[in-house]
Structures are given as C-alpha cells and as structure tokens.
C-alpha cells in the first residue's frame, strides 16, 4: 500500500441488523487533500465517518487510517486524528482556555506546549478577550472555529469534520474555510461532510454517497463534466437520487 494515502478503504461495510448503512465502500484519500463527502440525509455519510474515526466498528471490509489498521491499531489511530461533529462538542460550562487544556491534555501534550500553542491559536481566532469566558457564551460560528482549532490542536494527520458549518452564517463560513485551507497547506488531510454545494466546490475531491453506496468520486470539475451539468447542485441531485451509479 502506498504511503501517499491518508485513508484507504476496501469494501468497508456496516450493517445494522438487516439495514446496510454502508455498502462495500472502496476509496482513497491522499495526504494533504481536502476531501468532501456528500450525500442526502440517511445516505450513510455519518456512519462511514464514524467507522473511519473509530466510533463504530465495521461489519466487514478493511481500512487504513494514517497507515494504521482500523482493527488492530485503533489506539494509534485515535492519537493521529481529530474529530469535530455536527453537534457542538466542546464543554459549554468550561472556558475557552479550560477546553483547550482539557482536550490537549488528553492527547498527551505537555503543559508548557499547551500554554505556548494556545496563545497562538487564541490570537489567530481573535479570542484573546474571551479567553476566560465560558464557551457557552460565544456565538455559534465562533464556537465552531474554536472547535476546529481544538480538533487539530494536537497536530493530527487527518481531521474529520461532520457538517462543521451547519447553521453558521456565510461570513463565518468563509473564515472557517480559510482555517481549513491554512491547515491543509501545512499538510493536514481534511475529510468533511457537508450539505452546502458551494462548499463542495472548495474541496480537492468529492465522493457522493447514495443509499449506502459510493455513487461517484472525483474532482468537482470531473463530476460536473461526466454528468454534463454546470453546477454541483445538479450533479448532486442527479446522483443522490440514485439513478446512475459509478
């Protein structure tokens, strides 16, 4: 297996009873890539992401995350990934600094490093004044930017973002994407799900899921050409309906 892949899956499948949420997913994500995962509600995106981030164990198939085996080396995977879910997942009743201290500490960063790095991050996010305020008092967009920064605080190889910009205003969404680009330039692999089609165009490559299967994969340009559409919106509607599988 090549070392150029951040994620490589072969026939990854997850069944809940008779229902197959993810059906033989085979795909690769390159290192440093921004990879978008699209699909209608219930298509199996979140289940796939949960398997890749170690929250769910697959029914069958294999996957390597950051060159670690999903079954045998899950502890190593956990140390090398970051995760941010659609539900806001920091502690509202802790301050910004306390959230950073807690999560960074869990990943084993030294207190000295946490102190130095949190100063940089807080300055970048322009949260100096709010540093010792409870996170619950921040507006949603700020919270999500903070959650992203905390998810990548420990320098993971891959970060998983599950609908990170849901409910966030366009300006903040733009800032959020700046953060993603900056991180990707530093070599971080970003794996994200989204419902915003404009966001999907920002991705290097996209996979579209329909009914638990991988329906299409490629760059936004390729997908538009092969479906002879001018916008990702049309591509999505055609494929997510499940008419033409790859």
């Amino acid at each position, binding site marked *: 297996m090549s070392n150029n892949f951040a994620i490589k899956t072969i026939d990854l499948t997850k069944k809940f009873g008779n229902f197959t949420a993810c059906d033989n997913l085979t795909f690769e994500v390159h290192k440093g890539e921004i990879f978008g995962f699209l699909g209608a509600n219930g298509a199996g995106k979140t289940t796939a992401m949960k398997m890749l981030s170690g929250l769910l164990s697959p029914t069958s198939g294999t996957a390597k995350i950051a060159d670690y085996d999903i079954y045998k080396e899950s502890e190593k995977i*956990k140390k090398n990934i970051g995760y941010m879910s659609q*539900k806001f997942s920091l502690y509202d009743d802790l301050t910004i600094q306390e959230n950073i201290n807690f*999560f960074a500490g869990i990943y*084993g960063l030294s207190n000295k490093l946490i102190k130095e790095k949190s100063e940089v991050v807080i300055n970048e996010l322009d949260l100096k004044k709010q540093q010792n305020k409870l996170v619950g008092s921040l507006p949603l967009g700020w919270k999500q930017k903070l959650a992203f920064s905390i998810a990548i605080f420990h320098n993971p190889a891959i970060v998983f973002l599950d609908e990170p910009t849901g409910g966030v205003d366009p300006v903040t969404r733009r800032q959020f994407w700046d953060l993603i680009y900056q991180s990707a330039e530093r070599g971080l692999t970003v794996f994200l799900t989204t419902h915003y089609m404009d966001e999907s165009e920002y991705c290097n490559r996209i996979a579209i899921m329909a009914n638990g299967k991988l329906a299409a994969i490629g760059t936004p340009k390729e997908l538009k050409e092969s479906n002879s559409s001018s916008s990702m919106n049309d591509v999505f509607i055609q494929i997510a309906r499940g008419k033409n599988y790859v």
Partner: protein
Amino acid sequence: MRQILLIIIKEFKQIFRNRILLPLIFMMPIIQLLILANAATFEIKKIKLAIIDNDKSHISKNFAYKLQSGDYFKIIDYPNSIKDAEKLLETNSIDLYIYIPNNFERNLAKEHTEKIGVVVNAIDGSKAGVSFNYLLNNIASYQSELTKTFGNKINLQIAQSPKIISNDYYFWYNLNQDYKIYVVPGLLVLLITIVGIFLTAINIVREKEIGTIEQINVTPIKKIEFIIGKLLPFWLIGMFELIFGMIVARIVYHIPVLGNPLLIIGFASIYLTLVLGIGLLISTASQNQQQAVFISWFFMLIFVLLSGLFTPIENMPPLVQNITLFNPLKYFIEVIRLVMLKGSTFSDIKLQFFMTTLYSLVINSIAILVYRKSS
C-alpha cells in the same frame, strides 16, 4: 493517570459551576437532617384525652394527674356524660376518652380490682394503636403504684379488654425510644445513596445528551479511564456528605457513635462504589437526563421502602424479605445503626461487608461491560 486527573478536574469545575447541582449537593444534607429527622418520627406526643370522672375521688383525680404529668397525654376536658365525650370524639377534639365508674376508689380499696372504660378514635389506626399502648403503659405503672399505696395486689383493668398486655418493655440501645436516634443514621445512608445514584446517572448521561461523549470517544482516553474519572468525584462528594452528616448528627441531635466511626466510613467507601455502579448502569440504559431521573427514582423508591428505614424488614412478608436481600440500602442501614447505636465491631457486620463488596463487584462488572458495548 494524567487522563483520569484531567477528567476529575473538569468534573469538579463543572459541578461547581452548575447552579442546580451545587445547591443540591450542599443543601440536601442539611435539609434532610434538620427537617426530615423531625418529620420522620413514629413518636406521638400530646395525645388529646377526655376523662369522664364519675367517682371524683382522690384516687381518680390522682390518676388523671398522673396521666397528664408525662409528655404523652393532654387532658382536654372532663365531660359529664358518655354522650358529651362522644361528641368531642366525633369533632376530632380528642383522640380518646376514659370512663371512670362510680365507686372507683372504694372498689379498689375493698375488692382490689376495678375496670375502667377506654374508647379510642381509630381513624388513624397506627396512631390509635400507639396511643392505646401508651395508655396501657400508664395504667400498668399506676396499678403498681396503687399496689404500694393500698398494700394489696391491685388489679386495674380496662373493661371489655380480656387482659392487660404485659408492658414490660425495655428498649435496649435506645433507652428513651428517641426516634431521631433511630432515623438519623438511616437518613445519612439515604443521603449518600441519592448522591451516588441520581447525580452519577445524570452526570454521565449528560455527556451523551449534549454530544460531548462522541468527542471523548474519538480521543485516546480509554473507556475505563473515563468511567473512573467520572465516578471518582461523586465518590469523594458522597464521602464528604457522610462525614459532614455524621458531624451534624452529633452536634445537632447528640446521636452517639458507640462504635468506631472509621468502620462506618470504611463501609461507606465500599457502599459508594456499589451505588455509583448502579448510577453508571442507569446512565447506560438512558438516552437523556430525564430518563435517567425516572429510572433512578423508580429504584430509589423501592430501595427506600424495602430498606427498613421506616418499616421494620421483620414485619414484611417472607417473599418481600427475600427481595430486600438485593437492596444495597438495607445493608448500610443495618451497619450504620449497629455501629452507631450498638457499638458493633467488624466481626458483627462481616456479612454486610461481604454482601456489599460482592454486590459492588457484580454491578460494576455489568455496568462496565454494558457501557463498553453501548457507546
């Protein structure tokens, strides 16, 4: 270790910032001990009494005087007829009345035997029973007093009552039948059980409800580390409440601790692991805090009613008595009463120690297994 410490620090910060939890943790023990200890009494004082004194002799007046001299009876009226007395009874002005016949004094002196009538308002059955027993006690002691006065064996009876029940009660370990001494140690147990089950279940399920559990699950924290980090703060709070409660019991109610207090604290340290395990198990079964509270409440009710705190387990039917063997509360209430009031040592409570330890191991194993599977 660092992981566990980080979680404990986080938990304490969150607990001390919680505007509902914090007052609950620190007000609950005070309220329970100061108010409930007074409310949860089986003792009846100032039983309202009327006496129909047809004799109006020295002895009959002395009898009334004796009844009133204790704390238990308060003579409301001296009606002239049974009809008047019945009226008082019907209007709830009195709890019982006594009928003293003509020639009461003369019969006692000559025949050494006499009967008096007693009618008790039995709407509140348990109160009626207790009142009647108090009265029998008083009559019996008056009887022996009369025996001394007349120099002959006197037999003072209640009419239509086949015999005077022997009233030679002697209460060991709680000589004055002070119910607070009996109830307060039980309340202490109740207190730390509530902390253990409710707060733990709510606290763990809260992470599930707000979604932070997912964030925790993708980190390298091991589940066992997370559980220990979550439970330990409540173990510490439970131990704090127990010691705090014991100090309050000592200062406010002068409850003696005849045995070694360390024995109670030692037992509590094991007992708390058991109730925390139950809390953990409840949290794995529920999806949100509401469900956790409902399930906790359901078990708490059963635990309390079958604990022997308010009603003696010996009085329950055999089947129910067997069920109480699965009640953690029962063991601790036995232990705390034995050690505090009787001065029992470790060898007296070995069984309770063994059962609680075993129970804790079983519950915690199940809870951890279920927790691992569920998330």
